[in-house]
């Protein structure tokens, strides 16, 4: 089915055309050969894809297009992989078809990275399968030797079984173990000791002894094979690592699809005639003149050419009210143009804009972050070194004590020491519990950017919240209306709504929501907005109507009102004030529950806001938060957090706006709630998709519980090692018993960790 009416160029949305520009095109499209011809392969991330029926729909939509050769859609990753013929169609055509079908197409960030990820994950899976299959088969060959009398198996059959085991352990050693060896080698070259070094040495010695025993059972190293222990050990270790890698990839994928956006395009006015041209933001330079439509973000810092503009700088400064700008004044990249198209002359692009400065501030803060991973290495390093030294000394002492049995006995003891401690229980203790916790959280829509963050969260003692959008709903609602005695409510609301419909101020928007119930709105003329004051209009019945601040309607506010937590808006006609509207920010429904839960856990709660004193104090009282700060700039928040950290506190920061980015990165652990700015999501350690504050307290309780289980696991692993190392050193632990002990301790640790998955009912 090939559609006979290909999309014409002019039916493609302007923003999608950017997908055909070479710099963008390269990122999500690769050139491949398919059945002898050169074709393109593109990956689109699709928003709005929820079920298997969507897959069918998407695949049908795309495969009906001319030039599309193959479509593969995946629900889990929300991706469509399209193979298409570049001589017959274009990427923007495909994207437009997807958009028309109701799915918002976003170009994948990097098709090369995605292909590499798939290749790596396939390789990891194959390594596990190889080791697992060889393990099963080696067991088959080994078990008879354990359970039969020595005379039952003829020497020939015995030799054959040995050779078969040896042969099947080769793929494990050469292929499956390769990650351990290369990591150990990398560690050695950097003069570090990692978990992979004792693992590699243990594997190496086991294979070495096993090989000698295979071909010379009567020789120095005895007849004991270690291939069964070797293969089981490798299989368990690889499986654990693969599961962790998959979890990480899934979380990263989810985050990717959130932060991915279409490449920004902008309308540039070229030359004297000001001919408009759509270009991508990267192509702008200083002194270019661009036109920015209402609702769009300014692509770069610039000077306003049009006579006036209203901008929303909430993401950058935390100021939630629209700012008025006149011709010649500055506008900031990343802030939004709220009304009518305006023209700006660009003064700064790229790295010099304030937007990029905030981004780099965030990056710096995140690299300065204390790394728990380093701490873990600091502890693990000496322990692993101790094991290596202990194994070496034990072997040396036994060599000296019993030279007649050397080198078989000393090596056997060294292997026993290495296996018995082989960091299995120890290395599983933490990740097993944390993986289980991450799984539980993921089920509740809480994404984790790294397992180590669970420990940080469990240790946090101060929870600092941002206000707007975190504790409160993002929009204002009317709390009270006061009317003049001769005015009825419907007239007042009707007038207010009619005049407010000409403004984008948050108060106007809230008033419009109120007026939706009105049957008909009064007719007004000559409507005019005076910045920072309000609106004026003419009504045939009421004369001049004003809506806005106290000053705007000509009264003096009483002295207490600047501190008032509520925003007040006045409506007046020629006779004076007709009505007063009071607005409140509303708390999210479960804010109080979340704060109470955290307080019961003896956490300090902070409220850090860029907003004015009044509303901040009000929200703090409603949410029962004791400590609040208002009118903070991003730098002030950062400073407060750093100060508290210097006093030894551990801070969990919960926020959403872009201006929270630096402080999210500085805090010991951070949450981004709901529809947070993409940038701060990418820096947050936890992403709460539902945006509910209770999910923060839920995550904390899981983290706390997880840490308890981790401690139990570590204690168990420590006791096990303390008991077993001396036994192995004195030679009372043959390697097979060491292997059993290792397996048993691992199982104990993993089953303890699995208790976390049943935690939900209790919390």
């Amino acid at each position, binding site marked *: 089915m090939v559609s006979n009416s290909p999309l014409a160029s002019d039916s493609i949305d302007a923003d999608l055309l950017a997908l055909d520009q070479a710099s963008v095109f390269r990122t999500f499209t690769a050139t491949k050969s398919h059945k002898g011809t050169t074709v393109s392969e593109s990956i689109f991330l699709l928003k709005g894809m929820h079920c*298997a029926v969507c897959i069918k729909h998407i695949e049908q939509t795309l495969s009906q297009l001319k030039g599309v050769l193959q479509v593969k859609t*995946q629900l889990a990753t929300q991706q469509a992989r399209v193979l298409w013929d570049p001589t017959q169609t274009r990427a923007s055509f495909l994207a437009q078809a997807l958009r028309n079908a109701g799915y918002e197409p976003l170009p994948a960030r990097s098709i090369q990275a995605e292909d590499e990820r798939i290749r790596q994950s396939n390789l990891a*899976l194959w390594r596990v*399968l190889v080791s697992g299959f060889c393990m099963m*088969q080696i067991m*088959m060959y080994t078990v008879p030797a354990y359970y039969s009398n020595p005379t039952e198996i003829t020497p020939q*059959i015995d030799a*054959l079984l040995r050779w*078969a085991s040896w042969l099947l352990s080769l793929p494990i050693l050469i292929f499956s173990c390769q990650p351990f060896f290369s990591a150990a080698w990398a560690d050695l070259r950097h003069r570090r000791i990692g978990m992979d070094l004792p693992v590699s040495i243990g594997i190496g010695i086991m294979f070495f002894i096993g090989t000698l025993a295979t071909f010379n059972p009567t020789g120095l190293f005895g007849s004991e094979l270690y291939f069964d222990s070797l293969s089981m050990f490798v299989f368990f270790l690889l499986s654990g690592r693969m599961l962790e890698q998959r979890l990480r990839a899934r979380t990263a994928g989810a985050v990717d699809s959130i932060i991915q956006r279409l490449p920004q395009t902008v309308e540039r006015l070229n030359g004297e005639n000001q001919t408009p041209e759509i270009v991508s933001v990267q192509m702008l330079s200083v002194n270019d003149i661009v036109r920015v439509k209402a609702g769009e973000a300014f692509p770069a810092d610039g000077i306003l050419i049009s006579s006036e503009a209203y901008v929303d700088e909430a993401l950058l400064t935390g100021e939630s009210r629209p700012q008025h700008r006149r011709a010649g004044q500055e506008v900031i990249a990343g802030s939004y143009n709220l009304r009518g198209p305006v023209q700006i002359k660009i003064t700064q692009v790229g790295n010099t804009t304030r937007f990029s400065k905030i981004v780099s501030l965030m990056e710096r803060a995140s690299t300065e972050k204390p790394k728990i991973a380093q701490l873990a290495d600091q502890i693990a390093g000496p322990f692993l070194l101790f094991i290596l030294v202990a194994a070496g000394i034990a072997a040396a002492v036994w060599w000296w004590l019993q030279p007649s049995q050397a080198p078989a006995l000393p090596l056997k003891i060294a292997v026993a020491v290495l296996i018995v401690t082989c960091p299995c229980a120890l290395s599983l203790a933490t990740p097993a519990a944390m993986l289980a916790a991450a799984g539980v959280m993921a089920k509740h829509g809480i994404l984790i950017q790294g397992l180590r963050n669970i420990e940080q969260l469990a240790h946090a003692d101060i929870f600092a919240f941002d206000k707007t959008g975190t504790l409160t709903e993002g929009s204002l609602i009317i709390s009270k209306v006061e009317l003049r005695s001769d005015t009825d409510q419907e007239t007042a609301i009707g007038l207010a709504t009619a005049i407010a419909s000409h403004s984008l101020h948050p108060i106007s928007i809230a008033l419009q929501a109120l007026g939706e119930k009105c049957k008909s709105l009064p007719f007004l003329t000559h409507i005019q907005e005076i910045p920072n004051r309000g609106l004026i209009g003419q009504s045939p019945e009421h004369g001049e109507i004003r809506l806005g601040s106290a000053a705007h309607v000509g009264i003096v506010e009483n002295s207490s009102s600047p501190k008032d937590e509520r925003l007040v808006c006045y409506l007046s006609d020629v006779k004076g004030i007709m009505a007063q509207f009071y607005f409140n920010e509303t708390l999210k429904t479960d804010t109080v529950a979340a704060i109470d839960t955290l307080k019961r856990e003896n956490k300090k709660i902070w409220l850090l806001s860029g907003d004015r004193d009044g509303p901040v104090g009000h929200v703090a009282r409603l949410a029962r938060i004791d400590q609040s700060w208002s009118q903070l700039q991003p730098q002030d928040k950062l400073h407060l957090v750093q100060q508290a950290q210097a006093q030894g506190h551990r801070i969990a920061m919960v926020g959403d706006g872009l201006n929270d980015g630096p402080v999210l990165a500085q805090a010991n652990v951070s949450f981004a709630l709901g529809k947070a700015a993409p940038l701060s999501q990418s820096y947050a350690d936890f992403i709460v998709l539902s945006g509910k504050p209770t999910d923060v307290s839920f995550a904390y309780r899981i983290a706390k519980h997880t840490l308890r289980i981790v401690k139990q696991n570590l204690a168990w692993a420590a006791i096990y090692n303390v008991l077993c190392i001396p036994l192995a050193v004195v030679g009372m632990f043959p390697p097979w018993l060491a292997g059993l002990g290792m397996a048993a301790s691992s199982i104990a640790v993993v089953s303890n960790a699995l208790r976390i998955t049943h935690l939900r009912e209790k919390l």
Partner: protein
Amino acid sequence: MESLFLLIPFSVLLALAIIALLGWAVHSNQFEDLDTEGERILHDD
């Protein structure tokens, strides 16, 4: 017991063959998406 002289080498070859088969399956992305393919038959028109 003599049959073991044939069966043991044969089992080794079989194991290697199965590993190769798994390798082919993994690298042709058979394990990439386990959910969609199973559900596809339920949504065929």
